[in-house]
Structures are given as structure tokens and as C-alpha cells.
């Protein structure tokens, strides 16, 4: 027995991007249905590292990132919980002289974006931040920080539900077509009709893009995180590394979260697990870098599915083939901080047909002649 639902906007994918868009649209007065093939926030939005950072993003992302930056301190008012957001600052370390030059160049070139970056030398790293490992310097962004991805992602979905968004979990969309003046989506026993569809389906968004004649070269990546037992506070800042390899943060309860390696998918590519050689490497790297970790134990690892585009920029913006369809996916492991801003942008696109934040660089058109990921 099929249940028919009509709404102004259908959002496919209840991660942070979809949930924040749904919430914003609802407060603007639209009727919204939010669908997720599983539980909202259980995918990339809930299993990423949790860094809330602008520093290090390419310039085309910075306006969007700054827009999001303004939202994070107001999470409590927006979704009822602060998501354990801490404005701890983000410290990006450099292992070598050339890496330090890269940080210096970034700070210089993008000073106009207002990140207030401060370059730190080796001695100050030890004095101010207790960093004792093999690093030559760093770049500090005081306004950046970190939060709890599980709480934030679930929180936005819960707030959307409270605001009157119809949230359908464990309801995969099995068919999406444009007909007449809108879309018809099939999802389980539901037939959903809406003039506007937002494709925020994360690692599964490329299937929908393909259905509408605009395939994209999306790849799945699997982050690998290590979590320690609760420890006495010793790391007050969110740590990253130029060139990658390690990132670490300590939460208020004392656990240290360390990432930097890739995990492996299981037979079912929707699931993944950290590789043991990867976690062992990260654990050693972390205990070498921070004396506070020397005797600590890891108590759990986690992984998840993220969607990555070849240029590490997301796909955001109207479909190139189908009016009424808007894409927002492929955040390439850097979606957490910008997602609330993306949600606002998507809501503006729906309401006004345009947005005040520049997103041209993220247009799906850039993949028009690029070979898509094989099915």
C-alpha cells in the first residue's frame, strides 16, 4: 500500500547538510520531507574527526566556511544543544622547513579572509601548546575548534523533526524522476511528490546525479579514528599537520581523538573498519608527538564512509540538467565545519533562486567532461 506525501522540498540524505537545509527551509515556512536510507547522521556526518576549522581550506571554500563559522557558536539556540563545540583554536603543524613555508604562504595569501592566523615557531610550540615532537613550527587559528559529530548530526535531524520536518529514516529512495512540474520519489511504501529536490545523499549521491544525466567521479574514502581513554587535560587545541598524517584533539571529558590513516571497506562497501597497521602507526605517531599520550590506552576505533571528489571540493548548486534539483555532496572529508553554512545556502537557493555566498567553484558542471566513477 503506497502512501502519497506532497511537500515543497524533498531532501535525500539526512546527514548534516540535508538536516541543516531541512531545518532552515522549515523555518522559512516550506513543508519539507527528509529521507535517509538509515538513521540520520550515522554516516560521514557522524563519523568524521569532528574538526570545526576554516584554516587550511582552499580560498574558494573560505566565504562558505566563514558563513558557517558564524553559526557554530549559536548551536544551542538553533538545535537545542551545543554539540560540545569548543572554540579551542586550530594549530596546523609543519614537520619540515618547506611545510612551514607552505603555512606561511597560506597565511599571507589569505589574510584578507579574516582567519587571524598566527605563525608559531618551534619554541613557542612547546611553551604554549606542549608539543614536543619533531615539528618546526605551526600556524594557529584562534577562532577554529572542534565538536562532537555524533551529537551535532543527530541534533540537527532531531531539531528538524521538532520543527515539523517529516523525517523518514530507514527509507531509501529507490526511484527519482522529474515529471510535470515536479519530482516523484519512490521510497519504500512512500510516494513523495515535490517541486524541489535536494540531493545531499553523501557517498550515495552519485547514483542520483547519474539518474539525472550528470554522472560525477565520486570516490568513497574511509577515515580511521583512534580514541583514547579519558585523560587529564593536556591538549587544549585542535591539532592538524601540513601534508596530512595526523590530526588530534582532546574533548572536555578527556578522551583524545586521533586520525590520519585510511580505513578499509568490508565486503559491503557501506561499512568499513580501520586497518590495524594504520591504527598502530597513528597510535605511535601520536604518542611520539605528545608526551601526555605516552602511557595512554586506545579504547576504541571508528571508521565510516565519506564521499570525495577529485579536486577535494564539494558539489554544491543547481543541477546542470534538471530544474528544481539541487546538489550538495562530496565534501571530501572536510564537510563538518561548513555543513551548517551549506544548509543555509541551499535554503536560499530554494527560496530565492540564488545565494549571497559564492558557490560557482562547486558547480556540478565542472565534471561535465570528466569520466565518472564506473558503476
Amino acid at each position, binding site marked *: 500500500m503506497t502512501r502519497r506525501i506532497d511537500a515543497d522540498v524533498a531532501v535525500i540524505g539526512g546527514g548534516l547538510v540535508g538536516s541543516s537545509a531541512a531545518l532552515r527551509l522549515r523555518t522559512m515556512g516550506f513543508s519539507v520531507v527528509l529521507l535517509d536510507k538509515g*538513521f540520520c547522521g550515522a554516516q560521514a556526518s557522524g563519523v568524521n574527526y569532528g574538526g570545526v576549522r576554516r584554516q587550511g581550506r582552499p580560498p574558494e571554500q573560505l566565504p562558505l566556511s566563514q558563513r558557517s563559522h558564524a553559526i557554530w557558536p549559536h548551536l544551542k539556540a538553533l538545535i537545542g544543544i551545543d554539540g560540545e563545540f569548543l572554540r579551542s583554536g586550530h594549530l596546523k603543524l609543519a614537520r619540515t622547513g618547506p611545510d612551514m613555508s607552505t603555512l606561511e604562504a597560506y597565511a599571507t595569501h589569505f589574510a584578507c579572509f579574516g582567519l587571524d592566523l598566527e605563525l608559531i615557531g618551534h619554541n613557542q610550540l612547546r611553551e604554549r601548546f606542549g608539543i614536543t615532537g619533531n615539528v618546526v613550527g605551526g600556524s594557529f587559528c584562534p577562532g577554529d575548534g572542534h565538536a562532537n559529530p555524533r551529537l551535532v548530526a543527530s541534533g540537527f*535531524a532531531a531539531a528538524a*523533526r521538532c520543527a515539523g520536518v517529516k523525517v523518514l529514516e530507514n527509507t531509501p529512495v529507490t526511484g527519482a524522476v522529474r515529471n510535470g512540474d515536479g519530482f516523484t520519489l519512490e521510497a519504500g511504501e512512500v510516494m513523495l511528490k515535490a517541486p524541489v529536490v535536494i540531493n545531499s545523499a553523501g557517498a550515495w549521491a552519485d547514483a542520483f546525479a547519474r539518474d539525472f544525466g550528470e554522472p560525477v567521479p565520486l570516490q568513497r574514502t574511509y577515515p580511521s579514528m583512534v580514541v583514547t581513554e579519558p585523560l587529564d587535560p593536556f591538549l587544549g587545541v585542535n591539532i592538524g599537520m601540513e601534508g596530512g598524517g595526523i590530526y588530534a584533539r582532546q574533548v572536555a571529558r578527556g578522551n583524545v581523538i586521533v586520525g590520519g590513516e585510511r580505513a578499509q571497506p568490508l*565486503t559491503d562497501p557501506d561499512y568499513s573498519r580501520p586497518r590495524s597497521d594504520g591504527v598502530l602507526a597513528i597510535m605511535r605517531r*601520536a*604518542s611520539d608527538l605528545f608526551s601526555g599520550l605516552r602511557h595512554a590506552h586506545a579504547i576504541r576505533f571508528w571508521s565510516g564512509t565519506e564521499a570525495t571528489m577529485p579536486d577535494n571540493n564539494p558539489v554544491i548548486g543547481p543541477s546542470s540538467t534538471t530544474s528544481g534539483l539541487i546538489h550538495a555532496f562530496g565534501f571530501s572529508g572536510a564537510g563538518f565545519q561548513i555543513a551548517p553554512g551549506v544548509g543555509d545556502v541551499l535554503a536560499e537557493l530554494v527560496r530565492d533562486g540564488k545565494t549571497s555566498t559564492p558557490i560557482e567553484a562547486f558547480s556540478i558542471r565542472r565534471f561535465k567532461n570528466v569520466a565518472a566513477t564506473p558503476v
Partner: protein
Amino acid sequence: MSARRNPLIVGAGPAGIRAAQALVRAGLRPTLVDEAPRCGGQIYRQPLVEDGRAARVRYGSEADKAERLHRGFAALDGRIDYRPQALLWNLRDGVADITRDGVNHRIAHDGLILATGATDRVLPLPGWTLPGVFTLGGAQIALKAQGCAIGTRVVFAGSGPLLYLVAWQYLKAGVRVAAVLDAAPLSAKSNLWRGLRLAPAIVLRGLRMATELKLSGTGLHFGVTAMRMEGEARVERVAFRAGGRAHNIACDGIGYGLNLRSETQLADLAGCAFHYDARDRAHLPIREISGRSSVAGVYLAGDGARIAGADAAEAAGERAALALLEDRDLPFDRVRAAALERTLLRIDGVRDVLEAAFPYPTHWAGDIADETLLCRCEEISTGEARQAIKDFALIDINRLKAVSRIGMGRCQGRVCAAAAAELLARETGRDGASIGRLRAQAPIKPIPLALMTSDQPNEEQHDQAH
């Protein structure tokens, strides 16, 4: 003929020991990993050093079984690759990660027998984190393996046959047992009549234990509810309701447990399919009577797959080894396999009786106060759990963990997950099967960050004969 890697057995309790013996008899050289320094598991746990107590004192009626197993294991010396005091914390595609003394070893294996045993199942109670409150298993281990009593005036509380066994063992050791608080009604014990035919020795022994406890002045209370453990720096009293009125008993130690729960984390990591078992009230790995799991080459034996006791563990361990041999196209004793299966079926019938005579108190989960701590590691209260369930409209236990932190601590849900599951089922009006099972993650126990990796990148164990 190409060399196959050696099989890997996890756990040196009764199931693991019997599995190792059967594989060695067939000419294989299994690797056996166990966390303890000596074999025996928990039920036949050995002291760290000789303490002068006879086996009959330590293991009671099961002393002969214990000694046979310990001697049998000792005879395997040099014929297996035995790794005591080693933690297997991860499994993937035929390679296991094992830590010992701060060094990680990767063991490639062909064939895996999981004999990981069980721990006590508990529900949160007010005051259950007080010093002096141990699980029933913990109270038993203190006595058996460390020669210590958990108090001078001890109360034993909860449900299951272990409740009476441990209380009686303390009595025999000369410790004052103030009371036995049974969550089950006295009437449930009438089910033991059925057991008289199936397993008369067990039933008569149990009756004798209860009688001796009673005659010694120990208060036996049935249908206990509203239990509260009280004290300042340690436990000093236990309050409860039974027989229609309130009671309060002074004590300085409590042994508490509600039947047992299987350690299934490695079965989960090995990719085994699970189902919800109504008798154990838990999600358990699917297992044939042969011990085969849903994954080729992975076998499950003993309480680690379903609670059935030490005798069943011995039979299951040997039976699983025979299945492994058969799957390797090696000769195996078909007649023996059938006999072992008959033993397992018979014991299963006895477990049904025991379950009826010592029923789990399903009604207790409804009475947990908001202030009572649900997750000991993360110190999350039952009230916080209820609030999270409501705020996030939760219906799945992994989502409950994600947003409430329950199960995120060092024990990874060993102590709290069963209770969290009962709570979630109650709050949402769903059943234990549909709220899902807590997914296991590596490391299954805490491992040091500063682990060294062993020099050999992949210790391949080649079986010479096959």
C-alpha cells in the same frame, strides 16, 4: 601439497582446551591465545601461585574435571603455540592482532575457534558502583583464585544457579553469609522437579546447598525487588523488598549477578551472522551444533556463543575441532562427533530447566530510577539515557550509544549494554531483537598507544604436515 597455516584457538577455558587437544591428536599445531597466565578459563581458574588448598576445596564437586583439564593441557606442552597473558584485540581476513608485554604480533591463521567465555550479566541498581560490590563471578574468583573473601559478612544477590553456588562456596570457606537475595520467586524452583530426571546430581547438589545455607542461619529471600546497595566509602547495607515488606541487612561485601552473558566481540569482528536468542535474551552468533558459524573456517564453542556451562563447553570445544578437521578434509571421528552432539542436546535440556527454575527478572528493568548510573565507565545515568531516547527519537542501540555515550567507555558495553538494551526496549515498546545489537569494534579491550610492532611483519604459522 601446499602448507596451510595453523588454526587459532582463542580462550584456554574448558572449550579451548578440549579443542586444542582434539586438533593436536589429529596432528595439527594450533596457536592458543589466552589473557590469563594459566589455563582454565574462569570456571577452572588457577591461582597465580600454589596456595596449599586442595582442588576439592577450590573447585568443589567439579575438582576432578578441573584437574583433568589442567593435566590435559599441561600434556600439550610443546605441541601447541601457547600464548598466555596475550590479548587478541582485532581480527580481519585470517590475521589476528595479539598484544603481549607491549608488543603487537600479527598472527596469520587458517581456521579459528572462538572459545571466549562469558561474564556476569547485571542491571544497574542504586549503589552498585560502591567498593565491596562485586559480580557473583568476581566474588567467586576472589575466593577461588586469590583465596580472599569479599567481606566478613557477605550478601549474595541476583538470579541464576551461580547465586547459590557462590554463596555456598563462601559458607564452606567459613565466611559469614548474611543473606541470599533471589530475584526469582520461590515457586520457580518447583521447575527443578523436571531436572531430577535429566540431571539429578545437579539438582540434588543445588538443594543441598540451599539447605546448608538455610541451616547455617543465612536468610534466603525470594521474589526480591527494589534492591539498593548503601554505604559511604564502601558498601555497608543492602535494602530490598521481599515477602511483602521492606528489609535492610548490614553487610560489608555483596556478590551480585543476573545469570551470564556471552563474550561475542570476536565473533562479530570475524563477520559472523547473529540472531536474537530468546532464552539468553541476547543477540548471539548463529552456530550449528557442530560449532560452525556462518563464516567458513570460523567455529564457536562454549559460553562465548551461548550460555550452557562448563560441561557443554568441553563437548562443544572438541566438537568444533572435529568440524575444523572435517572442513580441512582431514580424518575425524564421526561417531565421537555424534556422541558429543548428543551430550550437547542433553545439556541443552538441562539448561531449559535451570532457566525456568532460576528465571531472569525481566520486571527489574522497569524499576530503575533516573539517578541510578547505567554506564559505569562513562558515568551516564539511567535518566540521561531516557532523555536521550526521547530527545533523539531513538529506536536502535548503536544510535543510543552514539548520542548518549553509553557503551563508549573502556568496557565497550560489556557491563552496560544488556541493561541499555532492556531500557531502550522498554522505553520504546519494542522487543530485544528489533532494537539491534551493539556492534563490536576493535580494540575489543584497551591497548597501549605506544605499542611496538614485533619484528616479524607477519608471523606466518605454517603447518608442516598438511
